[in-house]
């Protein structure tokens, strides 16, 4: 009698250690091989865009903290830049430097989380994650000096930042900039040449540059596929045009490239922060903007290169004190478009690793 086989449909999540939040994949397996899958999400949907319509422009900053909760500074930056574009406000120089310093530190913190959890998903339980969190802790300490909060910062304001950095911040930042390159060397020494990591990530979850562009993928995932597109370079905002840095590029677009991309971006972010520390001059940190901002009737879209990709806000003003519409272009959601291309045909265990290497954040996917 022939043995009968049939595909099995399995739910991975919504509560699974590697889903990084509440996220579900409905996967059809043929044995161990992924035949078909569908991402299911929305468990963390809070209606941020609708809530923004009921709040003043300044109050919405607190909502943006809760989008990608491991990169709140970048969310703050993207939002206040959109409001500034809408209202025609230009922040003072010192404020822009402070914003770039905090956004780049935030990028390092976010990439540390991504790298740590990727290794966790690979089966390296605990150690790499704790290493990454050790450094992230230093960055959170820095942010605490800036604004008093460690996760939900709300540091940025329309027209500048909440307050100037205190003296102790600069001392601690200097020390951090001295220490961090050695820490990154340490990860690379431990991980980048590690045979287990190489076999598990090389040529796994490949995303071609054509598919990546067609699917509107942005951020390190796009650059790992070899597309040279970094908003900080191609469309410089704030003071990025005054700073010299490189954009790392991948070649294959596999999990290993995405891992290396984040490591290299951390080094470049350090370079940007040290350059900013050199260039920053004294002056005011907030333009003269009233607490109740009333932008003229119209619409504006502005974007920043967040740690996960292009984060943009499309704001429509009806002349009132609250946005008429606040649409969030969230990179995590749109980066999920190509997930099927990357996972179908692979094994179950590779699927977990690939999901880790895309680095999605459910707060941002569901909003």
């Amino acid at each position, binding site marked *: 009698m022939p043995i009968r086989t049939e595909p099995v449909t399995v739910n991975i999540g919504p509560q699974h250690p590697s889903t990084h939040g509440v996220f579900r994949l409905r996967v059809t397996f043929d044995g161990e091989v992924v035949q078909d899958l569908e991402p299911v999400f929305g468990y963390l949907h809070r209606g941020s865009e609708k809530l923004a319509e009921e709040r003043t422009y300044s109050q919405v900053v607190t909502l943006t903290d809760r989008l990608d909760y491991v990169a709140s500074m970048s969310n703050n930056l993207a939002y206040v830049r959109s409001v500034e574009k809408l209202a025609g406000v230009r922040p003072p120089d010192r404020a822009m430097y402070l914003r770039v310093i905090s956004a780049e530190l935030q990028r390092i913190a976010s990439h540390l989380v991504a790298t740590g959890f990727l290794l966790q998903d690979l089966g390296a339980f605990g150690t790499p994650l704790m290493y990454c969190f050790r450094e992230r802790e230093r960055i959170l300490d820095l942010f605490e000096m800036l604004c008093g909060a460690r996760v939900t910062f709300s540091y940025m304001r329309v027209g500048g930042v909440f307050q100037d950095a205190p003296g102790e911040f600069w001392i601690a930042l200097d020390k951090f900039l001295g220490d961090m390159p050695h820490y990154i060397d340490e990860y690379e020494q431990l991980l980048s040449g590690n045979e287990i990591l190489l076999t598990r990530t090389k040529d796994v979850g490949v995303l071609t540059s054509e598919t990546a562009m067609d699917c509107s993928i942005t951020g390190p995932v796009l650059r790992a596929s070899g597309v040279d597109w970094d908003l900080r370079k191609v469309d410089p905002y704030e003071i990025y045009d005054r700073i010299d840095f490189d954009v790392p590029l991948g070649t294959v677009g596999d999990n290993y490239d995405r891992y290396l991309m984040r490591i290299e971006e951390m080094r470049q972010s350090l370079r940007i922060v040290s350059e900013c520390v050199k260039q920053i001059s004294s002056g005011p940190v907030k333009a003269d903007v009233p607490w109740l901002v009333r932008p003229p009737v119209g619409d504006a*879209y502005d974007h920043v290169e967040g740690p996960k990709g292009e984060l943009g806000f499309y704001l429509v003003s009806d002349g009132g004190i609250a946005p008429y519409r606040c649409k969030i272009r969230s990179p995590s959601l749109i980066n999920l478009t190509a997930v099927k291309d990357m996972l179908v045909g692979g094994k179950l265990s590779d699927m977990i690793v690939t999901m880790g290497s895309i680095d999605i954040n459910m707060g941002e996917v569901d909003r």
Partner: protein
Amino acid sequence: MTVSLTGEDVQARVVGAIQGSIESWNGSDVWVPSGFLHEVCKFAKEDPELGMDFLVAISAVDYIEYFELVYHMQSIVHNHKMIVKTKCWGRENPTIASVVDVWRGADLQEREIYDLMGITFTDHPNLKRILLWEGFPGHPHRKDYLEPPR
């Protein structure tokens, strides 16, 4: 710096190929009649001069009388961007052509608009709710949506 194409340049290029496809333009925005949207998007992507190979975002705004859909697109090759807007009339069952076959990046974004704004995209391969569950009453991002009593 990403160059923002002016509405005038865009309309001159598009109207040359597709007659009557531009309603009006202002600044960097061009308004397209909803019936022409798919054709214009396809042209914007395939035309070598415009070359819009990357869809940035689709946003929907509820203006009560009509819904406005805003397509932000850019060209990675030429490093320029443009904005296409279209009006979608009717509140009962507003419908517009899907652009998933032009850019796959529209897939999840159109599903999100269908879910939260209640606009149907024809020829979308998998149009169903994305953030809310099937059977959820209403579309929360509409201006006339009221939270159901608890």
